[in-house]
């Protein structure tokens, strides 16, 4: 790891990441090992969103050329969001690509991701299926996102109706995660979801 990258991450830990402001916003960064190349981030779902109460884990990889190039970040926790892949957790966010600037920090990244959870940008989607639902069927989107938050991110808000549908199809012998994806992608239409699972 290049000198500047390592020195910078160490300093970020000391001065930025552990600041009180960071604790207040419920964002967190931890070391995974002692090389500073791989970190674990955590953000709390913002209030008044379907992600409220959830705790989302992020995988952060620091490139050799950090901070001149952005860190590579993706969601480890499964999440239903137009700009985040429901399959891989890959994120579509400008500051993680061409809008990155060397003067930004991990704190900027985590706060930006939290802001992204509060305000999606469906016109620049990462997950086309989710983005389409977000635009065309906001109610179903809200419920689905809430359901995923409860199941995967420990959110307190239950969606009993959706839980029941997942349980019903899982009872037929399908994997619960796959059932959830199938139902979520097909507006919770059990028949179409089953068709999708079989094909």
């Amino acid at each position, binding site marked *: 790891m*290049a000198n*500047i990258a390592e*020195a*910078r991450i160490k*300093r*970020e830990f000391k*001065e*930025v990441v552990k600041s009180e402001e960071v604790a207040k916003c419920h964002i967190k960064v931890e070391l995974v090992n002692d090389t500073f190349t791989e970190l674990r981030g955590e953000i709390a779902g913002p209030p008044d969103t379907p992600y409220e109460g959830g705790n989302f884990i992020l995988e952060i990889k620091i490139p050799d*050329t950090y*901070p*001149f*190039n952005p860190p590579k970040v993706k969601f480890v926790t499964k999440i239903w969001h137009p700009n985040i892949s429901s399959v891989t957790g890959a994120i579509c966010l400008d500051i993680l690509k061409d*809008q990155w*600037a*060397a*003067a*930004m920090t991990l704190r*900027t990244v985590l706060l930006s991701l939290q802001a992204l959870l509060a305000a999606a940008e469906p016109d620049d989607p990462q997950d086309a299926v989710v983005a389409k639902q977000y635009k065309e069927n906001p109610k179903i989107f809200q419920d689905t996102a809430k359901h995923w938050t409860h199941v995967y991110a420990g959110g307190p808000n239950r969606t009993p109706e959706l839980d029941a549908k997942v349980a019903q199809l899982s009872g037929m012998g399908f994997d619960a995660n796959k059932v959830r994806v199938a139902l979520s992608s097909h507006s919770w239409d059990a028949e179409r979801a089953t068709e999708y699972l079989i094909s």
Partner: protein
Amino acid sequence: MSEEMKSQDSDNDSELEESDHMDDDDDYGGYYDNDTGDLDIDKPKKSDDPEYFEYELLEIEDVERFLNEEVEVLHSTLQIQPGLAKMLLLAHGWRKDYIIDRCKKEPDRLLIDSRLMPERKVTEQIFGNSAICSVCLLRRPQDYFYSLSCGHSFCGECWDEFCQVRIQQGVTTGIECMAKDCNILVPEDFLCSVMQKPELRDRYSQLSFSDHVKSHPDLRFCPGANCPIIVRAPVCKAKKVECSRCKTTFCFKCGIEYHAPTDCDVIKKWLTKCADDSETANYISAHTKDCPKCHVCIEKNGGCNHMQCSKCKYDFCWMCLGDWKTHGSEYYECSRYKENPNIANESVHAQAREALKKYLFYFERWENHAKSLQLEEQTLHKITSRIHEKVMNNTGTWIDWQYLLDAAHLLKKCRYTLQYTYPYAYYMEKSARKQLFEYQQAQLEAEVENLSWKVERAEITDRGDLENQMDIAEKRRQTLLKDFLEF
């Protein structure tokens, strides 16, 4: 391309439109009646050769000199630093007059638009004799800090490392300030002042030279592999350029293979489509077909589409398997796609099928001519070695047999153009103009196949007959280009 050039082009468009030979179909017959003149005498003059294009092939040093002269003009006219002049030229496609004009009227706006000056300058005050650099987060003495015109200050070490990383990533003329949401460009002299290691300077020069060439409307890198030649032409047009160094031919405007009469956008669309649909079209690639009469399997080994069954001697067309007799003369139907006239009333499914059928029709012909071209390349080699043999056996000199080689070369040229008429026709709206195009395409196709037939049998073909066929084929090609290639 500058505004003036654009309007010139569109003028030409309308001229072309006006000069359309939109007479009745009946007139086509007499079109070429007088075309029996000698090839040399009738060689197209510069002014009426639709493919004529003025250009020069330059070495890197020539181009460096040329670009420096451009910079010098701005430097002396506006009294600005050469480095600044170069950045302005790069930002505005080397339009000197435009830059000079704007610089006199609204110099600040010009600099802002060129990302050389910020809308608002930040005043980051450094209190005391040291400050924290927001990139490395280290406390640095005050005189360690550098900033661009925007005022965002960072320590020299960070600037140094940053510039190195960018150059290694291949970015040079586009390196921006390190601050968030700031897109002010890093000038070369600033970069040189912060970069401690000189190793990357050469790489910077190479890469930025390439950016300058690419941004210049009159210059084009030769696309040949590892070829250092740069082509310069006074106007940016979709015309053929041939590199004398690596023998690559290409379109000056878009830099890919030459594609007359199809234009740059259309050929790109076509090539993308072909790549996307390659699966569907794969079944065509077979090199063998059955004779339509006696069903013996026939392998195509020459470029000519006029096939003769080795067994029953039936003459047929490789493309449509129709009787060749109906192709050779009167009305060559094989190149024209017959659209279903009722297609608008058909179901979506049928329309999709029809669309695929139409595409395959054109693709098959496009692909077939490409293959024929490859086979004719082999014919060319064969002829060359045959001539060599003859000369060695004292049956004539190279000069005596040169016409065979000329014929093979001309055949390649004509078939090449013919190949590129298919994407053109595919994207053409149904119209009288399309009718004319298809008529001329059919004429060209017929004569190309006739020429191909004769070239493959060159040694038993009368020289006069062959040369006459060459003449006719080239005339057909010229006529089509004259009517349909944008001047």
